C-alpha cells in the first residue's frame, strides 16, 4: 500500500514538473510552423560519380545503380542539406536520450543459448548446424604465380 502511494506521488511529481517545463519553455511553439528553405543558399549537392555510387552501394547494401536510383540519392542529399539551417550554436550534442541515466549491469551467468534449431529457423540455407552465406573477404592470392614459374622454366630451357 505504502509502495503504491509512493508511486502515485512520483507520478504527480513528474506531472507537475512536466507542466512547469511546458510553461517555462518558450522553445516549443504552440502551433507547428513551416519555414521556407532557400536551397540556393545551402551547400551544393556534390557531383555523384560511379566510384562514389559503388562505394555507397558497398557500405549500405542498397543498389541504386540506375538513373532513378541516382536521382533518389541526389534528392536525399539535398533534403539532408536543410539541416544546415538549424542553429546549433552553444548546444551540446545529444547522443542518447538516456544520457542522464546510467547503464545497468548483469550478473555473469549463462542463462541463454542452447537453441540452435530455433536460431537456425531464420536461415534460408543451413549445413550441419552452420548458416550458409556467400563467400566473404577471402585473401587475394597471387593467382598468376604458377604461370610465372612456367614462363621462367621455358626461358631456362631455351637458353
Amino acid at each position: 500500500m505504502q509502495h503504491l502511494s509512493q508511486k502515485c506521488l512520483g507520478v504527480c511529481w513528474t506531472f507537475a514538473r512536466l507542466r512547469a517545463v511546458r510553461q517555462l519553455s518558450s522553445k516549443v511553439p504552440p502551433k507547428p510552423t513551416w519555414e521556407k528553405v532557400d536551397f540556393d543558399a545551402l551547400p551544393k549537392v556534390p557531383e555523384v560519380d560511379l566510384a562514389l555510387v559503388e562505394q555507397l552501394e558497398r557500405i549500405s547494401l542498397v543498389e541504386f545503380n540506375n538513373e532513378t536510383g541516382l536521382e533518389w540519392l541526389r534528392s536525399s542529399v539535398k533534403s539532408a542539406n536543410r539541416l544546415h539551417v538549424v542553429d546549433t550554436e552553444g548546444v551540446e550534442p545529444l547522443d542518447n536520450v538516456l544520457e542522464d541515466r546510467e547503464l545497468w549491469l548483469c550478473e555473469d551467468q549463462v542463462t541463454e543459448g542452447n537453441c540452435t534449431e530455433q536460431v537456425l529457423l531464420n536461415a534460408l540455407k543451413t549445413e550441419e548446424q552452420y548458416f550458409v552465406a556467400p563467400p566473404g573477404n577471402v585473401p587475394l592470392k597471387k593467382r598468376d604465380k604458377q604461370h610465372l614459374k612456367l614462363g621462367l622454366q621455358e626461358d631456362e630451357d631455351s637458353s
Partner: protein
Amino acid sequence: MRAVVLLSLFIHARSEWQSVIGLEIHAQIQSRSKLFSRAGTSYGASTNSQVSHFDAALPGTLPVLNRRCVEAGVLTALALGCDINMVSKFDRKHYFYADLPAGYQITQQRQPLAVNGQVTYVYQCSRTSRVERRSARLIQLQLEQDSGKSLHDSEQRLSLIDLNRAGVGLMEIVTAPDFCGGDDAASFVRDLRDVLVSIGTCDGKMAEGSLRVDANISVNRPGEEFGVRTEVKNLNSVKSMRAAINYEIERQIQILDTGGTVVNETRSFDLDTGETVAMRDKEKVLDYRFMPEPNLPPLVLYSQRESVPLSLPSSQRPNVVVLEEVQGQMKELPEDRRKRLETRYGVSLINSVILVRAELDELFETLVTSHGCDPGSASHVVRNNYNAFLDERKLTWRDSPIETSVLAEIVRLYHEGKVSGSAVSVLLSEKTLDGQLSVSEVIERHNLWMLRDTSVIEAAVTDVFSRNPKMIKAYKKGKVNQLDVLAAKVMKKLEGKADSRLVLTMVSERLKD
C-alpha cells in the same frame, strides 16, 4: 640464396630506413557469458549452440552489459597503467559481413573505458642474446563484441557461419606506434599476454584465437614523417606476428627503393609462404559510419562503494563496478615479480624473464629462502633443467613428482660441483622412475657423480684431438670458435659428467701446445 639476398637487403636497408609499428590487440575476456547476452563462451562448443536471440540479431532484442566484462576491462586497464574514464560510452561500427549478424559491432570509439597507458616490457632479440627493458605507450582500452567465425569453402563458393563467438567480450588494446620491428612487437605482446593471464582477464591462448593482433606497419627515412602504413590483420601466434612484420617491412622498403609507392591497405599473413597478401574486400578504406549506440546509456563507474548514489534502485546497487573493489582483485604483476628476483636475489634479467614466464619464480624463492639454496645455482637448475623436465611432462611444479626438498638437495649437489648440469637432467628423470631411492642412491646407481679424476678428462681430450686434426688446424689458423666445438665433443665423450668450465680450460690449454 634467397635468404642471403634478403639478409643483405635487411642490413643494407637498416642504415637508410626506419620502421614504425603500432598494434591493436584483441583479447577475449575470460567470462562465463557474453558481453551483452547470457549465452555461454566455451571454446569448441557445438556449432551455433552458444547463440542467444540477441547474438543472432533477432529484431526486438536488446543488449544487457555483463558486469564481469566491465570489471575485467577495468582490472586490465589498472594493470597497464591506464587512466580510467569514470563515464564511458558505446558506439556502433557498421560493416556488412556474414559473421556479424546485426550489421554493426558495438564498441567504444568516442569515450572508451580507459586511455593513456604505459607498459614496461622486456625486449628479447631473436638473433642475438640482447635483452633489455623497454616501454610502450597505450592509447586506449575499449570493450567491444567479437564477431562469429566463418569457414570458407572456395570450391563450393560459400561460407559456413558459426555464431558461437559472436558477441563474446573483447578488450581492444591500442598502442602508440612505439615499436621498431618484429622482435620488438613480439616481445611486447608476450609480456602483455603474461599480464592478462596473471590477472585472469584473458586466457591468452593465441592458438584458440583468445588473443589476436593487428599490426600497423610503415617505413620512413630517419628524421622524416611516418610513411604510408599497411595493416596486417589477425596474427594469432607470436611467431607469425614476428615473421609478418619483418616481411612487411622488407616488402615496403623494396617498393620504395624501386621508386614505387606503398598503398594503404589491409593485408593478411600466410604462415606457409611467409608472405603478406592483400585482402579482397578491404582494398578501400571502409566507412564504418560510427554512431552512438542508442540502446545503451553511458557506463558509469564509482571510485568507492560509498559514492554509489542512493537514487540507484536497490536491485542494481550490488551490480555497479567500484574501482576500489576491482583494485582489490589485483595480483602481483610479472614485471614486479621480475624486479624482485633481480634486486633481492641478483638473478639476471633473462633468467628472471624465463622463471616468471614459466611460473617458476615462487618455487625459486622457496628454494632460496626455505631451503637455503644458492640463488645462482637455483636459478640455473630451475631455469635449464627443471623447466624442461616439467615441460616434457606437461606438469606445473605444484604437481611435480619431484618434491621441493629433493630439488633443493639436487641444487646443493650442483652448487658444490658434485653433479654437472647435464647430469642434473638425467638425475631428475631417474629419480622420478625410482621414487623410493634417495638422491645419492640414484646418482650412485647411474654413475652420475661429477668426474673428479682429471686424468680421465685428459684422456678424453687426447682422444678427441686425435680424431679431429682438421679442427685443430682451423683453430690455429684463427677459427677461434673451434674451441667451443672441441670442448663440446669432450663433454659428450664424458657423457656430460664433467665440469664444463674445467673441460674448456683443459681444451684451451692443450690447444696452446
